[in-house]
């Protein structure tokens, strides 16, 4: 069997793999079929990788290359497997960020290697050079940006926007370095400019460095509340970087997969930005949550007029309600209180209360994060309602229980002139009565007081989310 005889079949296997990815994503449109979709996608991946191995076997590569492939795969696979098995669901955003980083990094490395290989062999074509540079730039930005995002989510780096003097100028300079470097290499490929191979390598190195630093300066000024957008955007970047690597290697499965992921990340970015009623540009420029005007506007509007409520009173309200809507937020996830929340919900249901969960699109730290946390706690997914679906229900809700959610319930969003203005919110204040479980009067990511807390209908149950829910559960049981 020669390489030329085998290649068409390997190509078809790649195509089949890509088809499995598309179908796998298609099955994600319902929770009932999603698991099989993921398995189909994994089967497609196995097929594509297996076919590539067959091709290399026929081609006859040396032992060292096989060692690099097999050992590299085993080490990376073991690390991925161990992390995936043990990571708590609250840490999913960090993990996805790390996967974005390694995916982007791998794509950048593929492009870099191709550049170096061509450098020895006497220069590459214009289009290859262009795709190589694009792959290097996008991949490197994704790599460093995702690591910073992951650090912010993990709390290693402050979640507050970090802005240092001259950061904007630095960003512009980095952009120019990358742009001129790209021009230099492309002109060198056309033959307009003659670059010594060593100089070309230095130019590429400068581009890589600029892209890596750019990734850092891009994510640092973005506040914790905007993380769902950032993760989605970096996900789109990684996909694009993989597609660029596909152009470089002239490999269809890489191009198709990269395009699919790019599309997915793009859609999620748009959805998340819409849910915050902010443009992507506005988020990237940053500064949300740390601005002076935010602190000035706060000025004790809510303080003093807040009414505290005891667990027993709250339990009576909940137990004799017809419809209770629970609004979980990130505070619930941080306190690992999703199980306590489900327990209270089930207890109320057994008493004949209808219970719904209202999930804001940006609840949690990545798109759909809260749904996963509640699913983990064994809450059936038909009870999880999206914002548009649940907002009309607040008018007939007897009690709304807000657990660890803040900015997404702030009625101030309906008025202009404050940091949350225009953000789509859950209409919690339309309910007959509101109970908020919260540790203190601390502020959310937007850095302003929540006017909901000063509402006469609102009772504040000052407790940790898990503790407060446990108090309510035992109080309801005692009734």
């Amino acid at each position: 069997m020669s390489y030329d005889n085998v290649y068409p079949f390997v190509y078809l296997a790649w195509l089949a793999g890509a088809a499995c990815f598309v179908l796998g994503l298609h099955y994600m449109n319902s929770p009932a079929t999603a698991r099989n979709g993921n398995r189909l996608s994994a089967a497609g991946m196995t097929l594509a990788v297996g076919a590539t191995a067959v091709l290399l076997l026929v081609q006859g590569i040396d032992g060292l290359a096989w060692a690099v492939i097999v050992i590299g795969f085993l080490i990376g696979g073991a690390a991925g497997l161990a992390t995936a098995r043990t990571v708590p669901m609250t840490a999913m955003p960090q993990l996805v960020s790390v996967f974005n980083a390694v995916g982007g990094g791998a794509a950048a490395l593929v492009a870099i290697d191709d550049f170096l290989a061509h450098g020895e062999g006497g220069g590459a074509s214009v289009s290859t050079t262009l795709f190589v540079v694009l792959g290097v730039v996008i991949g490197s930005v994704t790599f460093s940006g995702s690591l910073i995002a992951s650090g912010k989510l993990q709390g290693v780096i402050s979640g507050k926007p970090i802005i240092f003097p001259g950061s904007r100028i630095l960003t512009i300079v980095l952009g120019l370095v990358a742009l001129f470097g790209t021009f230099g290499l492309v002109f060198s490929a056309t033959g307009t400019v003659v670059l010594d191979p060593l100089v070309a390598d230095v130019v590429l190195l400068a581009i890589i460095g600029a892209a890596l630093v750019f990734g850092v300066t891009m994510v640092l000024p973005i506040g914790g509340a905007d993380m769902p957008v950032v993760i989605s955007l970096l996900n789109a970047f990684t996909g694009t970087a993989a597609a660029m690597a596909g152009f470089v290697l002239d490999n269809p499965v890489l191009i198709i997969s990269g395009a699919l992921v790019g599309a997915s990340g793009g859609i999620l970015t748009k959805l998340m930005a819409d849910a915050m009623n902010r443009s992507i540009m506005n988020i990237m420029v940053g500064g949300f949550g740390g601005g002076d005007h935010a602190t000035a506007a706060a000025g004790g509007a809510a303080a003093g007029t807040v009414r505290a409520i005891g667990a027993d009173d709250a339990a009576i309200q909940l137990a004799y309600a017809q419809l209770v809507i629970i609004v979980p937020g990130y505070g619930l996830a941080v306190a690992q209180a999703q199980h306590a929340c489900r327990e209270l919900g089930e207890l109320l249901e057994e008493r004949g209360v209808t219970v719904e969960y209202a999930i804001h699109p940006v609840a949690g730290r990545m798109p759909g994060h809260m749904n996963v946390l509640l699913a983990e706690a064994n809450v059936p997914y038909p009870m999880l309602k999206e914002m548009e679906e649940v907002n009309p229900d607040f008018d007939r809700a007897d009690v709304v229980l807000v657990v660890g959610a803040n900015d997404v319930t702030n009625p101030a969003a309906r008025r202009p002139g404050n940091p949350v203005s225009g953000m789509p919110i859950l209409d919690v204040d339309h309910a007959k009565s509101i109970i908020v479980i919260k540790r203190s009067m601390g502020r959310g990511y937007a850095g302003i007081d929540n006017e909901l807390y000063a509402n006469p209908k609102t009772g504040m149950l000052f407790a940790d989310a898990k503790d407060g829910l446990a108090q309510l559960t035992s109080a309801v049981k005692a009734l």
Partner: protein
Amino acid sequence: MTELTSLLYPISVFVLAILVGFEVISKVPATLHTPLMSGANSIHGIVLVGGMFIAASAHDPLAYTIAFVAMVFGAANVVGGYVVTDRMLQMFRKKPVAPKAGTEGATGASRGQGSRP
């Protein structure tokens, strides 16, 4: 001109794949956005194939090192991505199962106590 012509085919594939992606993914409900993202994440682990190719064509220590790191990154991406997505998706259920039996027993008992006096 010929170089541009040879690009037309991969670019068509790219553009059509983006459109297919938009079409398929816009139907995914918000409930599944996290598994969707981590599933998409595993798909871009396909750069693993790229890592295999650069390992195959490597001739010097630098190239072997680059290929090795790319293989580690890509494999972590693929294996970790699929496993964690599966772990998430198996938690999505229509009706509560096993653990509920325990809590039902417990609440049943407490109810019994409540009705005694």
